[in-house]
């Protein structure tokens, strides 16, 4: 072996303390946990549109959650003498055909719609991401078997599937959330799987194997973060899909039952009387649309924020 080590690198330092403050700051960060989410948040804060959307979304959530307690009206007490009346000082959003205060109904409907959107999307996210990542990573026969199962569920008509679930487990709001989540994860699983298959060929996965990391670690730490971009975009598309499904199920008598309502149900009622009492459609539709806009901008912002390469600072 020849001696080319004349240009020897820096000497070993027994107790190195290079660039003190920078390192100290970094240590704090490391001890606080995952740098991925912290960095993402730092980048998201610079995105005005996403931040505004987040703010509006939180406002809508607060409006729906806290609102009904502050209102002097009650969503169920009817006033058949009043009937449907346009917005007034007493009823800001007007009343519906049974004389119920629409403002409170929109707020309470929002509770259900938001809950369904978040719970069902979370359920679909968890199942879909894990299922898809495992299938894509394992490959071969395991993958084939897992994806045929997905195909099987895809082939099953959604309504029949939900009705079966409802019949088997009884009817409850939470079960409806889970039932919707159980259907919506299929697309998620396919997208995550295809992403993982693409990533698996990259050398950093091989490098991770060659460094002795376990499969679980490779899937959770190295593969899933890399597919989060598309996953978040799909999630923001899943939320409205889920809310619409809920309205559809309610229409069939499988979801929310009167006197309770969700945005989907309110919009449905509103469009039946659209020409005579337009406010019955306008108010719930406005909140529904606003929420979806916020979630879309937020999802878009999150996707950019999660990708370190998009950082231009």
């Amino acid at each position, binding site marked *: *072996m*020849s001696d*080319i*080590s004349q*240009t*020897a*690198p*820096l000497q*070993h*330092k027994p107790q*190195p*303390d*290079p*660039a003190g403050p*920078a*390192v100290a700051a*970094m*240590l704090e960060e*490391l*001890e606080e946990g995952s*740098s*991925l989410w912290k960095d993402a948040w730092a980048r998201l804060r610079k995105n005005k549109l996403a931040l505004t959307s987040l703010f509006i979304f939180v406002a809508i959530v607060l409006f729906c959650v806290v609102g009904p307690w502050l209102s002097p009206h009650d969503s169920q007490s009817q006033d058949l003498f009043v009937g449907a009346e346009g917005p007034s000082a007493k009823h800001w959003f007007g009343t519906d055909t049974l004389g119920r205060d629409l403002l409170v109904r929109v707020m309470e409907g929002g509770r259900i719609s938001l809950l369904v959107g978040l719970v069902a999307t979370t359920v679909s996210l968890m199942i879909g991401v894990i299922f898809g990542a495992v299938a894509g990573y394992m490959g*071969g026969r395991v993958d084939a078997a897992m994806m045929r199962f997905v195909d099987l569920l895809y082939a099953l008509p959604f309504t029949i599937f939900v009705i079966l679930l409802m019949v088997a487990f009884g009817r409850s709001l939470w079960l409806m959330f889970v039932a919707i989540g159980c259907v919506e994860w299929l697309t998620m699983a396919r997208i995550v799987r295809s992403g993982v298959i693409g990533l698996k060929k*990259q*050398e*950093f996965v*091989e*490098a*991770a*194997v*060659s*460094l*002795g*990391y*376990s499969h679980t*670690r490779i899937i959770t*730490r*190295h593969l899933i*973060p*890399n597919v989060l971009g598309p996953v978040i975009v799909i999630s923001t598309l899943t939320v409205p899909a889920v809310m619409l499904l809920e309205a559809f199920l309610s229409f069939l008598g499988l979801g929310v039952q009167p006197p309770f309502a969700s945005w989907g149900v309110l919009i449905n009622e509103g469009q039946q009387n659209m020409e005579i009492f337009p406010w019955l459609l306008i108010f719930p539709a406005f909140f529904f649309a606003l929420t979806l806009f916020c979630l879309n901008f937020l999802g878009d912002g999150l996707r950019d924020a*999660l*990708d*370190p*390469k998009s*950082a231009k600072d």
Partner: protein
Amino acid sequence: MALLEVEDLATHFHTREGVVRAVDGVSFSIDKGETLGIVGESGSGKSVTCYSLMRLIPEPPGRIERGVARFDGQDLLQMGKSDLRHIRGDRISMIFQDPMTSLNPYLRISTQLIEAQQTHRDIDTKSALFKAIEALEEVGIPDAANRVKSYPHEFSGGMRQRVMIAMALINEPDLLIADEPTTALDVTVQAQILDIIKQRQERLGTAVILVTHDLGVVAGNCDKVNVMYAGQIVETGTASQVFYEAKHAYTRSLQKTIPSLQEKGQELYTIPGLPPDLSKPINGCAFHPRCPFPKTGHKGTERPSLKDVGDGHCFADCGFCDSSGSIEDVLAKGDLADTALPGEGAEA
């Protein structure tokens, strides 16, 4: 005892087109602190040999058919998955060809370097971070204390390969497998990367298997050299033996392809033809159809085995070609290889 002893390693790929014998009976050994070069054309089985040792061959379609790889007394090829995980990254690590994709784009360099340590060592995050910074300094990354928190995309290709080297060596492994570590890099950076590997090797006493198709790299960096062709070793010996006393027709043809050895204005030499299709059985010397030397007989049916020609210098002598003359003379006598090819090509 040698650090790693490989005996009769064979890795085949079972594809729809048939069994591809990517590596077919390879034996070699490497001592502590030694550098072993593996050279050969694309598809000669260099990388598959390394991947087999790390058990990174995708199974199926790949399968390690036979062989023993004794690493410190344990057979890597028979080892259980969890034992293997303790070896990988701790005692044997690997550097890959493409530094652009071998770091996780979503994690900071610091996170990746710390993870590599904490997987194998009981080390707190703070010490691991210091060690990561130190490791980056040692591979020549300027301002390592600040750069450690960068993401991979903020580094150039050469810098990323340095990070890979730092990561592969951070647990001070006994053996480093470098699979064409400089192929994807600029020529100017190549030499630096090889120097860094060498420096770190000298400091840590790591043995290195250096896979490359660049003969120049091998000559300057390796103690021992294996020349591979069509899944087998055709010549092996010390770097000077293989370089200055090359015996095998393939090794000599390879040398002839180095541009700097040719006169100015002369057309660059390429070995005519293509390597044989490894999914078909090979009779006799695999290089026979492309061999420029005059044939003195039929190529036989068995692939020639390695014969010792003194001081551990071995080559697979087929005995049917007259490789005594200089290759320049042979080539000057008219394109023997070209005229010999059509008939032989059909046979292969």
